[in-house]
C-alpha cells in the first residue's frame, strides 16, 4: 500500500496568515484528497486533486481559501489562506492507490490564534 508523508505535523499560526501543508506519496497515485477534521467530528472532504487538472471543491469550500496544487503523481499541497480561529482543525491528505484502497497521511494539527 502507498505510504504518505505529511508535513508539518502541527503548527500554531497567527490569524490572517497562510499555511501550506505538503503530502508526499511513495508511489504514483491518480487521485488525492484533502479532508478537514474538526474537534470531535469526522472527516469532511475539502477537495479532490487530480494531476494535470484543477482541483474539485466540495460545497462550502472555495479555491481562494484553500488553494491546492498537484504538480505530479506523487505530491500535493493544500494552503489554508487568510486564517481565522475557525480554521483550527486537523487537515488530512489521502490517496487512492487503486488496488489497495485509501491511505491517509498522519495529519496536520492547525491552531490559529
Amino acid at each position, binding site marked *: 500500500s502507498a505510504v504518505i508523508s505529511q508535513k508539518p505535523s502541527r503548527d500554531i499560526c497567527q490569524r490572517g496568515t497562510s499555511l501550506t501543508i505538503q503530502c508526499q506519496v511513495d508511489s504514483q497515485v491518480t487521485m488525492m484528497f484533502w479532508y478537514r477534521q474538526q474537534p470531535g467530528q469526522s472527516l469532511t472532504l475539502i477537495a479532490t486533486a487530480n494531476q494535470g487538472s484543477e482541483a474539485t471543491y466540495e460545497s462550502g469550500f472555495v479555491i481562494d481559501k484553500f488553494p491546492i496544487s498537484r504538480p505530479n503523481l506523487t505530491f500535493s499541497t493544500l494552503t489554508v489562506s487568510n486564517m481565522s480561529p475557525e480554521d483550527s482543525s486537523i487537515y488530512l491528505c489521502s490517496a487512492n492507490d487503486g488496488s489497495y484502497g485509501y491511505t491517509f497521511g*498522519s495529519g496536520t494539527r492547525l491552531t490559529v490564534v
Partner: protein
Amino acid sequence: EDQVTQSPEALRLQEGESSSLNCSYTVSGLRGLFWYRQDPGKGPEFLFTLYSAGEEKEKERLKATLTKKESFLHITAPKPEDSATYLCAVQAGSSDGGSQGNLIFGKGTKLSVKP
C-alpha cells in the same frame, strides 16, 4: 443524499467484554465500505474493505460484516490497546457507472477498553 451513521458514539468496555459497532449507510451504488481505526493525533489507519452484502473479513480480534444497509465491526475479547476511534466510510458510485472517488465518513465510535 449519501449518508453514513455510526452508533454508538462512544462505547466503554471492560477488557475481554466483546461487543459490536454499527455503521448504517444510505448510498447510491455502493462501491465499497471501509473501516478505519484512528488514534488521537494520528491519521486513520486502514482496517477493512467490504464490497458486497454477505462479505466478512477478520483481523486479530476484529471482524467486519456487511449487509445491504449496514456493517458491523465485531470486537472479540478486546484489550486496552484496542481503544481508539473507529471510523466507517463508504465509496459511492456515480451516475455514469464509475466511482465518485472520495470516501464519505461517519462520525465514528470512540471505544475505550478498561483493564
